[in-house]
């Protein structure tokens, strides 16, 4: 059974259609990257999943239960970290972590102390004196110190330094190994690429691409660099070849995977010295979807 199951989700704010067609799923033991540009509907989707705003149509289920109706049951086994952790200014970080753990209901004191140490947070400081990154740590520690089966992260590492970012990544991997599910929404594509097993790309309120990262890479293009003593410029006109650039004997282009055999056959006829092929990065995938 999928942990998150979203089908044809719609959301309207007045006349504005924030989500028009959102479907994806998150499986246990899997990290799903949720990416899209600003205003595409990532946070709206997450807030619907949290049961704090009501969907206009479609279905959204967590643990097989409706996110609005059975919110309370769901939330007992779920953790959430927003991109801007909001805190009460006059309480200390340690106090706020304890409150959040208490409200969640299944906190682990030892885990809390361990995380505070790992993330190098000073829990005595008042929240108003924390920097952006430290506020974020308070949210992360409270979410990671409780027992949950699903973790919703919305830009969780914004403001964290690279060292802390890698600690976060280690912790998320641990969660995954314990068989828990993670939905990770982020703009830091390298982070998503490193962690995620599958990806859902959202654009203007619609999921335009979803599946495992491997699959998606296969479905798209690779970047190929070649060197030859002869002129390779004739490859530019072949079907499936894009972004062709030439610098004397070096050429670089991206090619649709289904056209790769034909292109290579043509190339070997001309004669090549070296060939390098790189799989598309997540950034390539992402940009490809938004250029259009």
């Amino acid at each position: 059974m999928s942990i998150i199951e979203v089908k044809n989700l719609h959301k309207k704010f007045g006349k504005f259609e924030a989500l028009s067609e959102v479907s994806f799923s998150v499986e246990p033991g899997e990290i799903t990257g949720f990416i899209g540009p600003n205003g595409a509907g990532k946070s709206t989707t997450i807030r619907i999943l949290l049961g704090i705003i009501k969907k206009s149509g479609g279905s959204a289920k967590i643990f097989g239960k409706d996110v609005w109706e059975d919110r309370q049951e769901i939330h007992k086994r779920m953790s959430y970290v927003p991109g801007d952790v909001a805190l009460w200014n006059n309480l200390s970080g340690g106090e706020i972590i304890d409150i959040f753990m208490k409200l969640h209901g299944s906190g682990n004191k030892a885990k809390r102390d361990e995380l505070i140490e790992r993330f190098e947070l000073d829990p005595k400081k008042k929240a108003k004196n924390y920097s952006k990154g430290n506020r974020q740590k308070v949210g992360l520690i409270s979410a990671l110190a409780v027992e949950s089966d699903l973790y919703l992260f919305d830009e969780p590492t914004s403001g964290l330094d690279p060292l802390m970012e890698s600690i976060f990544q280690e912790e998320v991997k641990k969660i995954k190994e314990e068989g828990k599910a993670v939905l990770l929404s982020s703009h830091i594509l390298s982070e998503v690429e490193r962690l995620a097993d599958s990806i859902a790309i959202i654009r203007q309120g619609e999921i335009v691409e979803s599946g495992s990262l491997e699959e998606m890479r296969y479905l798209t293009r690779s970047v190929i660099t070649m060197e030859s003593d002869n002129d390779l410029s004739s490859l530019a006109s072949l079907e499936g070849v894009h972004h062709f650039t030439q610098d004397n004997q070096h050429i670089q282009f991206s090619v649709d995977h289904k056209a790769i055999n034909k292109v290579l056959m043509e190339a070997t006829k001309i004669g090549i010295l070296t060939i390098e092929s790189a799989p598309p990065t997540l950034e390539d995938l992402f940009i490809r979807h938004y250029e259009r």
Partner: protein
Amino acid sequence: MTEKFAYFNQLLLIYLKRDWKKILFWIVPLGSFGGAFVPAFSEITKDGGLIGMFYTMDNPALTAMVGTSPVEVAENYTLGAMYAQEMLLFTGLISAVVSGLHMVSHTRKEEDSGITEQIQSFRIGRQANSLAVLLEVLFVNIILVFYIAGVMVLFDAESISIEGSLLFASSIGLAGVLGGVIALIMAQIMPTAGGASGGAMAIIGLLYMGRGLTDVANPELSVFNPLGWIYLTYPFTENNWYYLFYLGILSVIGLVIAFILEENRDIGSGYLPQSTGRIEASRFLQSIPGLFFRLNRSMMISWLAALAFMGLAYGSVFSELQVFVGSNELISQMFQQENMSVEASYTGIITLVMVGLATILPIAIVNKLFTEEKSQRLNQLFAFKTSRFEIYWTNIAIAILAGVLGIFLSSAAFGLAGISAMKEASTLTFGDFIVAGFNQVPLVLFFVGLTGLVLGFVPRLGKFLYLYLTYNFFIVYFDGLIEFPEWVMKTSVQGWLPQLPADAFNATIFIGITVISLVMMVAGYIGYNQRDLIEEG
């Protein structure tokens, strides 16, 4: 049903723990204000003071401010009757305002800041937060009731009975609950936290002014005003407990409405649409004065409109004033003995009130500069070629302008309404009203200077200036009722200024206070220019 409010008890405990200092600073001063003046008032009652006070309070101007009393003849006016008439509505009003502000700051404001979203991600019920904050407000007001009643009974003064004290205190407590409920409703309707507290304050303010008008013109109509119910309980005299029942029922109805409204809206949005802005900034907005005018615009407009409205309301009472003086020989003798017309002294007192209120706006404008600073928005401005000189003096100038405009609008409205109400019998000209108002301009200048000084050296204390202003005002306002020694009067800026048109204009004092104010403004600039900016998240 239970799911919606699940774990509200846990939230309530957390909130009480989080807020206990605030609650202490809420109950003790407010409760003491409401209950601890018994000995001071009992001083006044000596040597026939009660009878004099009865006639003083019988004045429509005062009735409009503090409410009515059931006592019809001076001989029946007791300490309790006087205490209830003078203190109950004011304390109840403050209680409603404080509860309302607390309500918004822990519901809608936390929604805007994102805390609610975090709380909602736990197993907490969807409406548990509102219920918890409401119960917190209820809890505070219950403690407040026992505190006030306890303090009053302790003084063991004549006619201050236990029953009356409890009723007096309960009226204040229920006023607080009602204020909280009104705020909770506005928190659902308005698109932002600022709109919600503004809306709640506007409703409470309109109810207060409305009952002032009906009290003077037609007291029977005040029975339909929830704010009227507070003093219509008439503690120590009639002890009308049933008005508390009305307040309770109304609060419950309001509460149900608020919860229904909350259930049917998305978090972070209200029922009124959020207004959108223009695509491009106008030329005016692209300057420092333009920017700060804009930041203060809605506060300035609403405050100035309220001042003008108040001037009209107080001015329209003039005809009643003449009836009142004509009908009572003792009063007219009193005024004649002191050789001044009742119109002139009424004009002086009301001008005092209006200028006191008009001074809040300039203080708020200068304080806003510190709010901007704390939220780090000024950093961006200082990253340009903008100087602190420009920012500081622009805001000082806007504040002075707003204060002077406030005085002008309220005095003009007061004068226009007053003259048309008095018809031919008018002994005052429109100019008298305006001059009376402008005579008090040094008060605005003084507080702008003081706020500037505080901003320059101890900006965190800025919010306490409202307390000093209130003190200022209470000293002169109650001077007629409680005879303060001369040195106490001199701790109030308004105590130095003569009250026109009854008194004569005093150029020395006018210029003196103005010069002191200018010196404070300059000193404030020197401090502001060399201190570190303060940042709070």
